[in-house]
């Protein structure tokens, strides 16, 4: 039952501006067999003109479903069973297809949570941005192109003319996300719905994007519905805040009120779980036996992407990983942070050999795996696992979660019953209901999918775990739970972890050492204390300074 705090602020003041968007008693039901009957139940809130409304809440609490409902884009299996959504004078739920079409893109735009699958794989990103304008008859092909290039630049993508011609799969996670943002901002609509738009962005880029949104908001009076779990962001931009849990709004109010004096226990718990920059190094109780040999020794690793054609002048050469070297000892965690597009994921893929490196060596437990043939390497695979940055794309859309989790161990000889038992244990540990076992990936929220990815990587007891933005889509309380889990596993099994993240606070908490990457190179590496309190390189300093909502060492 929604409690008091869930009711929208009843503004008695007649002079108060009319909301541009108002949601009333919205109930969206889920198909049978899900963990609960409704994705959201009886929620109501208003979005006022020129206001930024942040929706925070538990992963799987119905934030994305609400956003989709507002856009009129719910998947066919999910239905709005009750309530009303009004935008200005239009009732979204009752509106005809043509009315909705006209509103979308022109009046309201949305940044989707999952940027890779949300982009058309066969179109260049430039064309996809320009298409928004075309759809509403804005400008000429030439002017649209110019505007698209401008947008690419504004969201901080390097070399816009080259980016314009890229296909989504050639971009890094953060780059895709910025393309989505550019698309949504193209027409500067009066309502922007942003579903976790900065999860894959490093703090400097994130700051740039937030500024961009602010600018447009100031210029055009745009109202923004901003879904995020990053309290730093909330603190920085929110005018009002809605807090959701399990399909209900548990609390809403102005940003100040909610953040400073949270009323609902869930909100309190959430705020308590917000990670802070520690700046202290991680303590290892039983000073790990100083093994002579590192688990992983990487030397001079290089990967260059080439795409396009020289002849047509569309060639793009990216030195994604450029002479990277580091060591990782068992039971230790190396954090990799850095600019979006700096090659973090590429490095991760190289380490788990999903991609061949151009040169350099990867010594795993003393033997070089870089040159190993796939057939020989397969036996080693259970020891080296990865959590993918893009949770949805990395899950087979036609497999149930149960299959996804158990298939690996079963293929390596674990009896099915045993694999199934440990899968269910893991699902519980990552905070998913055991019923998730029989469901398909598309039936989950973004954060839930990410947790499936985590569970999959932990199904084996790997020696080396590459976690690529493993907790970026999780709300802080679940994030804390997962980090704790990882920490526990690391202590129990001595797994060496490479933790790729843009969230420096998280990195500061769990890493023994942090490597800062920029344009394929490690520009600085050292323990958190060094990185956060005494950064050597200019880039690191910039990075640390841009952490929203909080300053290092505070």
């Amino acid at each position: 039952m929604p409690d008091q705090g869930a009711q929208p602020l009843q503004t008695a003041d007649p002079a108060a501006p009319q909301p541009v968007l108002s949601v009333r008693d919205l109930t969206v039901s889920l198909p049978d067999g899900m963990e609960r009957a409704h994705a959201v139940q009886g929620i109501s809130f208003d979005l006022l003109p020129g206001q930024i409304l942040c929706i925070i809440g538990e992963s799987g609490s119905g934030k994305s479903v609400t956003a989709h409902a507002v856009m009129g884009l719910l998947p066919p299996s999910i239905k709005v069973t009750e309530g009303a959504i009004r935008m200005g004078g239009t009732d979204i739920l009752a509106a005809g297809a043509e009315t909705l079409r006209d509103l979308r893109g022109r009046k309201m735009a949305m940044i989707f949570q999952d940027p890779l699958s949300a982009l058309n794989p066969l179109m260049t990103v430039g064309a996809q941005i320009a298409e928004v304008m075309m759809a509403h008859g804005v400008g000429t092909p030439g002017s649209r192109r110019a505007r698209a290039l401008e947008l690419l630049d504004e969201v901080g993508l390097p070399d816009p003319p080259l980016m314009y011609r890229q296909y989504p799969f050639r971009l890094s996670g953060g780059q895709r996300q910025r393309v989505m943002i550019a698309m949504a901002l193209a027409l500067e609509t009066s309502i922007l719905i942003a579903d976790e738009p900065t999860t894959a962005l490093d703090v400097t880029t994130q700051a740039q994007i937030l500024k961009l949104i602010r600018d447009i908001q100031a210029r055009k009076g745009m109202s923004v519905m901003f879904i995020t779990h990053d309290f730093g962001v909330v603190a920085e931009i929110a005018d009002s805040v809605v807090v959701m849990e399990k399909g209900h709004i548990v609390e809403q109010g102005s940003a100040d009120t909610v953040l400073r004096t949270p009323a609902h226990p869930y909100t309190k718990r959430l705020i308590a779980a917000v990670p802070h920059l520690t700046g202290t190094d991680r303590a290892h109780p039983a000073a790990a036996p100083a093994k002579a040999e590192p688990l992983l020794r990487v030397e001079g690793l290089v990967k260059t992407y080439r795409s396009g054609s020289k002849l047509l002048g569309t060639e793009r050469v990216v030195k994604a990983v450029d002479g990277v070297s580091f060591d990782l000892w068992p039971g230790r965690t190396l954090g990799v942070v850095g600019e979006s597009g700096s090659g973090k994921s590429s490095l991760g893929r190289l380490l788990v050999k999903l991609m061949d490196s151009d040169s350099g060596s990867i010594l795993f437990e003393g033997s070089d795996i870089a040159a190993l043939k796939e057939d020989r390497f397969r036996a080693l695979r259970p020891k080296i696992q990865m959590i993918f940055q893009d949770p949805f794309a990395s899950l087979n859309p036609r497999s149930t979660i149960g299959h996804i989790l158990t298939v690996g161990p079963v293929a390596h000889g674990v009896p099915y019953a045993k694999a199934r038992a440990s899968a269910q244990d893991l699902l519980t540990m990552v905070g998913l209901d055991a019923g998730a076992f029989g469901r398909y990936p598309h039936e989950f929220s973004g954060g839930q999918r990410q947790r499936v990815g985590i569970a999959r990587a932990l199904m084996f007891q790997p020696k080396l775990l590459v976690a690529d933005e493993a907790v970026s889509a999780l709300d802080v309380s679940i994030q804390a739970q997962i980090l704790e889990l990882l920490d526990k596993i690391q202590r129990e099994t001595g797994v060496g972890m490479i933790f790729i993240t843009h969230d420096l606070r998280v990195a500061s908490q769990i890493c023994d050492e942090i490597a800062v990457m920029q344009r394929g190179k490690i520009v600085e590496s050292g323990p958190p204390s060094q990185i956060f309190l005494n950064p050597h390189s200019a880039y690191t300093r910039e990075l640390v300074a841009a952490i929203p909502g909080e300053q290092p060492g505070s």
Partner: protein
Amino acid sequence: MSTIPLSEPRSRWWHSRAVRRFARHRLALIGVVMITALTLACVAGPWLLPYDQLYIDLRARFAPPMTGQHYLGTDPLGRDIAARLLMAGRTSLLVGVCAMVLSTLLGAFVGVVAGYRGGWVGASLMRMVDAFLAFPSIFLVLALAALLKPSPTMITIIIALTSWMEVARIVEAEVRSLREREFVQAGRMLGLSRSHIMFREILPNAMGPIIVAATLTVARAILLEAYVSFLGYGIQPPLPSWGNMLNGAQQYLASAPWLAIVPGITITMAVTSFNFIGDGLRDALDVRSGPG
């Protein structure tokens, strides 16, 4: 929170969502019912009818449907069409289904392997497909038929051998695109074997065209059997098949149209049922398409 009993070794396939979705698919059920009815009729029917499918009675030739106990009329030799139709169904359905299964399996197998492996393995497999495609299908049919001893099994093999290439090529192209997808990489990361990735992870994602190809093959096989028989390499008279009943009716288009209409409708019914089942399967496997 529902917990799943751990004692159960592996969730039974008939408990799976796909099966449930299939069972709720109205068209698919119609298809299953129609095919089952047709099969049962073909298996049991000939004993229940008053006439033998081979019994020639020249005085009764060209009886239109519903003449006496000739419910579907008689053919140019006065044989009971109903009896022949059901007998014919045994051959035609068997040939159609077996050829479909064989060619789809072969085509899908080659397509998946060629598409996933690429390199010289893929190239050689695809050139093999090209080689089969290079021969006009009549040539292949004639050649194989002339060189092998004709029998229903052989016809099935011949038809399968001449119709697997389409599936192979379509699947290959599909798989070439799928193999770059991230979930396939995830499969590799788990250390799944190549064949596991190919057949358990990728194949289900290429099911759409495979199912279409399979249903198309049923229809083609039933007609191709008639053509092969017409050429003298298939089922010999007096044994009927749907296709050769239809073929033999050519001359009587104007004078005895039921000779064509009866087997024509039957083939259409069978093919449509298979197609409905195919649609149902498609939808059942396409987990995103509708309610779970």
